[in-house]
Each structure stands twice: as structure tokens, then as C-alpha cells.
């Protein structure tokens, strides 16, 4: 950074930073430390007894924990496939000159992003309702009654049903991310490819795709951290049920603490999620920098 003509004292600088750091640290940093501290105890009869790493040992062997984590990974995987990839395709299509109303499309597809998760969850409860739901009635109306499902009651389907709701709500976010990435790429390379007679498909794969590598990394990082953050939607839509079928890891921590009064174990799960999320995100960023971005340059 260039030397400044005026530089306030270090004290003045920290005075400006301090209020924000205190508020933010009080919600982000101290709970992490406190959460880790409590995870070293055992809760029984509303009392805490020192337990060392016993909770982490239990976590390692806890099939329910791994099952709920598997649900998070299903959501992440499907998000990357259907949400990120579809958003990319739509963005590329919208960027071509074929599309007649790009502004309207962008606004419409983005619209659900701004709605409250509680509202969209109720929307999807109504969509999935067995008898008066939008989905089963639509299937009936178009003669596909045979495809009707117990969307939220069938343990084999429910995790996919809630994922549909998530993909639906946030695809617009990924769309605008790709659109903004596309607006920054070099138009000359695309025109050059067109002059060479490249098809739309070839343009996308060989010209556009590589130039969007960093946008892709942002989108995938978002899908991963987003997939591990999932809580409200499932909490409202299914309560994690039936049984454990649609429970995600954040909700598992919630129910251990608040429904089973096992705060130590709830904190243990919380710490595990944080560590896992930060590890996965760092790995993704590292992998992109190492294998994708470098190759291109």
C-alpha cells in the first residue's frame, strides 16, 4: 500500500475497529471457545463433569451423527450438480444473444432468494402436501398421477424433497454469481472463437468455462459452506423426520442440546461442524488454486 499523506495513530485506528470487533467476536469467537470448553465435559442431571475427549470418542462412533452428516453431503452434492451447474448453464444461455428478456429472467429466478426460509418452507409444505398439495395435484392434472409420492413422509425420498426446496430457493444466487463472472470475461476471446466457427457448445467448454474458474470455486465453496449451514428449512419442513431420515448435522446438535438436555454433546457436534466446514472450504480453495487456476495461466 502506498504511503499515506496522513496516518492516524494506532490507537485511533483500533478505536474505529474495536466496536465491530467486540460485537462480532462476542458472537463468533467467544462461543467457539466456550463451545469447545463445554465439549470437554459430560452433562448429566443438569451438571457438568469433566470428561476430557470422551464426547469426541462418542462422536466418532456415533452412527446417527455420521448419518446426519451423510444427509449434508447429499445436499451438497446435489447442490453442486443441480444448483451450481444449472445456474452456470442458464447464465451462459442468458449471456448469449438468443434470450429475449434476460433482466426479467434474472429477477424472477433470483426472487426466492430474498424470502424468509420459514416462508419458503411453508410454501414447500403446501407444495408437498399429499392431498391438497401443488405437486401431487399438478401430476394428477397432467395425467401423471402415477408419479405421486409421499414427498415428506417417505424416508427414501424426503431428503431429496427438502433438497429440491433448497435448490429452488437459492439457484438464483448462483445464477447472479455466474452472470457477474461472465460479465467480466474477455469478450474478444468469444468473438474470436465465433469467427473460427465454434458452436455454442464448443464456446462454452473451451472458451467460457476456463475463464470462469475462480467463479466456479466461489460457487462450490458457497455450496459446501451452505450445505453444512442447513438448518431452518428442515427444522420447519420435516423437523428432521420421519425418524432420522431428513435430519442434518446442525439439527442433530440442536436436538442433543435442547431436546435431550445434553449440552456437552451438542457443543461437541457444533465444534465438529465448524472444523469440518473450514477444512472442506480450505481444501476446495487450495484445490482450485493448485489444479484449475494455475493450469489456465
Amino acid at each position, binding site marked *: 500500500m*502506498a504511503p*499515506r*499523506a*496522513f*496516518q*492516524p495513530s*494506532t490507537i485511533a485506528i483500533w478505536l*474505529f*475497529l474495536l466496536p*465491530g*470487533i467486540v*460485537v462480532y467476536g*462476542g*458472537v*463468533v469467537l467467544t*462461543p*467457539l471457545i*466456550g463451545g469447545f470448553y463445554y465439549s470437554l465435559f459430560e452433562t448429566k442431571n443438569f451438571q457438568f463433569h469433566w470428561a476430557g475427549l470422551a464426547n469426541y470418542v462418542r462422536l466418532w462412533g456415533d452412527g446417527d451423527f455420521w448419518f446426519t452428516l451423510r444427509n449434508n453431503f447429499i445436499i451438497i452434492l446435489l447442490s453442486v450438480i443441480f444448483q451450481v451447474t444449472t445456474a452456470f448453464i*442458464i447464465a451462459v444461455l442468458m449471456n448469449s444473444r*438468443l*434470450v*429475449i428478456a434476460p433482466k426479467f*429472467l*434474472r429477477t424472477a*429466478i*433470483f*426472487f426466492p*432468494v*430474498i424470502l*424468509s426460509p420459514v*416462508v419458503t418452507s*411453508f410454501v414447500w409444505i*403446501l*407444495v408437498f402436501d399429499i392431498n*391438497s398439495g*401443488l405437486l401431487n*395435484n399438478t401430476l394428477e392434472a397432467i395425467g401423471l398421477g402415477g408419479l405421486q409420492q409421499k414427498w415428506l413422509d417417505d424416508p427414501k425420498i424426503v431428503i431429496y424433497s427438502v433438497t429440491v426446496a433448497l435448490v*429452488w430457493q437459492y439457484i438464483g444466487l448462483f445464477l447472479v*454469481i455466474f452472470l*457477474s463472472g461472465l460479465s467480466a470475461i474477455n469478450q474478444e476471446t468469444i468473438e474470436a472463437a465465433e469467427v473460427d466457427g465454434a458452436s455454442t457448445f464448443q464456446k462454452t467448454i473451451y472458451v467460457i468455462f476456463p475463464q470462469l474458474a475462480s467463479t466456479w470455486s*466461489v460457487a462450490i465453496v*458457497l455450496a459446501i*459452506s451452505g450445505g453444512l*449451514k442447513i*438448518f*431452518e428449512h428442515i*427444522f*420447519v419442513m420435516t423437523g428432521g423426520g420421519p425418524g432420522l431420515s431428513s435430519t442434518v448435522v*446442525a*439439527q442433530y*446438535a440442536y436436538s442433543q*442440546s*435442547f431436546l435431550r438436555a445434553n*449440552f456437552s454433546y451438542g*457443543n461437541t*457436534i*457444533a465444534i465438529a461442524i465448524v472444523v469440518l*466446514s*473450514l477444512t472442506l*472450504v480450505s481444501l476446495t480453495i487450495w484445490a482450485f488454486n493448485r489444479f484449475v487456476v494455475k493450469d489456465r495461466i
Partner: protein
Amino acid sequence: MTGRITLPAILINAALILFALTTIFPMIWVIYNSLKSTAAFSESIFALPSDPTFRAYVQIFEVGTVWTAMWNSLFYAVASTTLIVLLSYCIAYVLARFEFPGRAAVFSFFILGLLLPIPALLVPVFMQYRTIGILDTQFTLLIPYTAFGLSLAVFLMEGYIRKIPVELDEAAHVDGASLFTVMFVIVFPICRPIVATVALLSFLHSWNEFAFATTLIRDESYKPIPLWLRTFGGQYATDYPALMAGMVLASVPIIVLFIFFREKIVEGFAGGAVKA
């Protein structure tokens, strides 16, 4: 528009428009069904209301709890937005303009907030609040709402301030303006566009937030609108038009903001994500 009318063009447009309709139709469906009687709803869930009624809305307003929740949400959203704008501007200005030891650490510290799985913090935050004794007050939710809004706000603001020529600050300083004057009288007005973006995003987040509200608030009189909707949804689970009316009421301010400021909101979300 230079596109020719070809078969692929028609197909692509049709597919995209169909897709866009599926994203907005459910909410439109909710809005028009909220104007039906329960009998009309069970007759056909698709048909437009032939005899629109505000019965569901009247019923909700008569119970009255929605007003408290609306005021609470408005208070949380406005107050946390104000705090976020002020605090993030101070932080972003300092980060963008000055070199000092710990600068990078402070910056990464705030980046962390965008990647943390927030619901994982519910339990520890709750226990911390319980220990301090600040559960269940009018101000309880302001702290997490402000804190988690700061990450994104600091990013957006820092990036914007960086693009403003620093000569402007220096010239003002040479003319005798204090740091405070430079920050708030000279530079802040220039930042209006990004302040607007930050304010809109913060307002949306605070208005919609559910996880912290459901964990930290037990007193009915401090519940924000998403909590109200969940309780109301439980009580009126079989009165579909009433439930839908509740959903509409919970979303009206958000939808109005979106209609007026859609470009800014979309840019804000995209910019925040790409920077992160």
C-alpha cells in the same frame, strides 16, 4: 436485440421462461389462495378466487399478535441495519485506507464469518447469553444480527472505498479536516451506493432470520415475524388460506423492497459472493 428467430432460440427462451415461472409461481399461488375461503380452496387449489375474501387477513389482524411481531422485526431490522452500516463503515474505511500491524488478521477475522456454519454456533451462543443474562430482551437479537451482517458489509464497503481516490482524503486533510470529518463528511456521502446495498442486504437478513430467534427468544413480546409465522402456521395448519395470508404478511415488506430495489439487491448478493 440481434438474435434471429430460430428453433433453438424459441426452445431456449421457452425453457428459461418456464423455469422462471416455477420460481415465482409458488408465491403467486400463495397470494391468490390467501384470498379464498377454505371451501373455495378445497374445491380447487389452482383456480383463481372467484369470490375474493379478506377473511383470513381480518382474522389475523383481529388476533393481533402479528402487529407485535411486525414491530419487533422492523425494530430488529432497522436497528441492526443502522449498526451494521456504522460499524462496517468504520472498519472498512480503516482497513482500506491505512496500513497497520494486524490489518490482515482483522480482515481474515471478518472473512471467517462468511464461511462459518452459523447454526453450529446456536448452542454455544445460547449458553454464553444465558451466563451473561441477556436472553429475552428487546436487544438480544440485535447482537447476532449485527455481528453476522458485519462480515459481508465489511467486504463490500472495503472494496468500494478502495476504489475512491485517496487523494480526495488527503486534500481534505491538508485543508485541515480532521479524520472524523474526512470519514463522515467527505468520503461517506460518496459511498452512498454501497451503503444502500449493505443496508438492503442487512435489512433482508435481519427480517428473515429464524435460527437465532427461535433459540434466544422465549418472550412472546420480543418475537420477530418468522417465529410468529411458525407458531401461527402450527395453529392454522389446516386452514390453508389463513396460513397463506400469514405467509404473505411475513413477506410483504421484503417483496416491496425487492420490487423497488431489485437491481441493487441482486448486485449486492453477487458482489458479496464473488468477493468472498
